């Protein structure tokens, strides 16, 4: 219990509802407003799962995931993306991420995916 979740998305609206959907479920939640602050956070702290947008203004999602895998080997990743274009699909496949959701997604979808991913990596 008390797993640490990092939510990375440049859109406040998305960060807001995702963290509220996950709050009260025994997680410690952190958010990052872009790729570089996410990387900075991961350099300081350990996380049990990261939820990461793909298209961000500074460092793109795939780069963030790569850095996460170096900084914290074996960390599960959930991608949340605005489109399932060829390039997004390629990232999801190449990075072998543990889960992916296409926006717009509901609160139940993100809750059950987080639970599932955490159960698998325990």
């Amino acid at each position: 219990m008390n797993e640490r979740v990092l939510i990375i998305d440049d859109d406040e609206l998305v960060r807001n509802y995702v963290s509220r959907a996950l709050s009260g479920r025994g997680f410690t939640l952190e958010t990052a407003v872009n790729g570089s602050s996410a990387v900075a956070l991961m350099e300081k702290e350990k996380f049990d799962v990261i939820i990461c947008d793909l298209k961000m203004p500074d460092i793109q999602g795939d780069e963030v995931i790569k850095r996460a895998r170096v900084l914290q080997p074996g960390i599960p990743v959930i991608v949340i993306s605005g489109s399932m274009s060829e390039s997004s699909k390629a990232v999801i496949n190449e990075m072998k991420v543990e889960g992916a959701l296409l926006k717009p997604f509901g609160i139940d979808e993100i809750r059950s995916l987080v639970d599932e991913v955490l159960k698998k990596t325990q």
Partner: protein
Amino acid sequence: MNHKAKILVVDDEQHIVLMLSDGLKQRGYKVETAFNGKEAVSKAGREEFDVAIIDIKMPEMDGIAALGEIKKMNPEVEVIMATGYGTMGTAVESMRKGAFDYVHKPFELSEIVRVVERAVEKRRFNDISRAIFSTIESNDLLEIIVNSLMNVLKADDVSLMLFDPKNRLYTAISSGASDNVRKNTRLLLSEKTIAYLKENSLNSLVLMEEPGKDPQFKNIATAGCDIKFGIFLPLTEEDKIIGLININRTGESEYFNESDLQRVKIFGSLASLALRNAKLYKQLQETQSQLIQAEKMSALGQLAGGLAHEISNPLSGILGLTQLILENSETASQNYKDLKEIEKAVFRCKKIISSLLSFARQDKFSLEPVNINEIIEETLVLCARQMEVNQHVKIVKRFGENLPRAHGDFQQLMQVFLNLITNARDVMPDGGELTIETGRSDENGRKFVTAVFRDTGPGIRQDIIDKIFDPFFTTKPVGKGTGLGLSVCMGIVHRHNGKIEATNGAEKGAVFTVSLPACE
């Protein structure tokens, strides 16, 4: 081309000018005169002539220079040169500069009249062929061909027959043959002629004299056979007969003479060539509009991709927050119901975005040999039961047997068929019948596998039939239809290099035909 030709006579010797101008006027030509090269050029600049007769040796500007100037202004005018001392040199030079012919001085009036007649005839042919070749609309073209033949050959009736897509001969246009009985006789005689030509592998012209009296045509309605003399001229493309022109004189008319036949032959090759041009032009236009369509699609694809991405975040927020409030609302409250509606609206938006994306999707998809019947069966598993039980729409399958496989993407084709089936369901709210027929077809040597969806709904209004494949075009009430169903279908079918067409059935209802390239 019924007007009498207009002729310009140019010579510095007055008595020659007078002789020519009187002689030609008597024969019905319109004549203008000039006494030197300069005057001739300025006259030709002010009005148009069909033919000019120009003396070579004149003061100031000689005939050859005048010829050059006049041809520059009006290349269509046919020029006859009169050479005084008959040296071959000047004659050759004038021919090289575009003269029609030359005559030696001194000449007989009758001699020059014959040359003028030939020059006028050439003018006419040039004018007609120019009209023919500058006309690219097939229907106008046929009309020009038929009317010109009526005039040039002094015919009483002319018909032009072509083959329809099913290879049956039909009368494309006819002039002079007033009633249907007559038209039909001509068509039947033409059919016989073509059969005869094909049997003997000929494509030459056939002449008939009073076919009504000929026992071999006995069973062809003799009632309509008032033909005295008939010419049956096959039209060919690469030695294949593509149609026929029938030219007739009726009543107490004269027999066609040798020069008539000569003209008809020239006409035949002109007409064949022009029809071929018109066909090529039409193909070009089709290719062009396909290219434009493809370009539109690709622009729309980019737009859709961008739009989907931009809209997905706010939409995600609306959905998530709505659900969060829903969790804390009394299920019996009005707020709860309203929020449920908002949630539903978001799902609708999500569906719109995904069909927009699938319509415009640029990514590759996997083409493999697929069995069209199988895909339709699979699609029907999804929707047939519900349609038959809930909507009383009876589904009739007429599947072709042993069809070749098509190059296709199973999933995407299911999407196409599902859209067509649900559209049919939507236009038959009180029940009806949907017939799904599969088969094969051939087009320009390419083989296709086809699926035809025929419903018993109201059919497609003629004024919107061109628009129904446009993205967002819908006649459904606001909120009920996205207008993307058919554009998705078209996007997918085009990526298969196939075709999708909408027509109305003979009785009622709409007919949608999907054709996909067959394997092998």
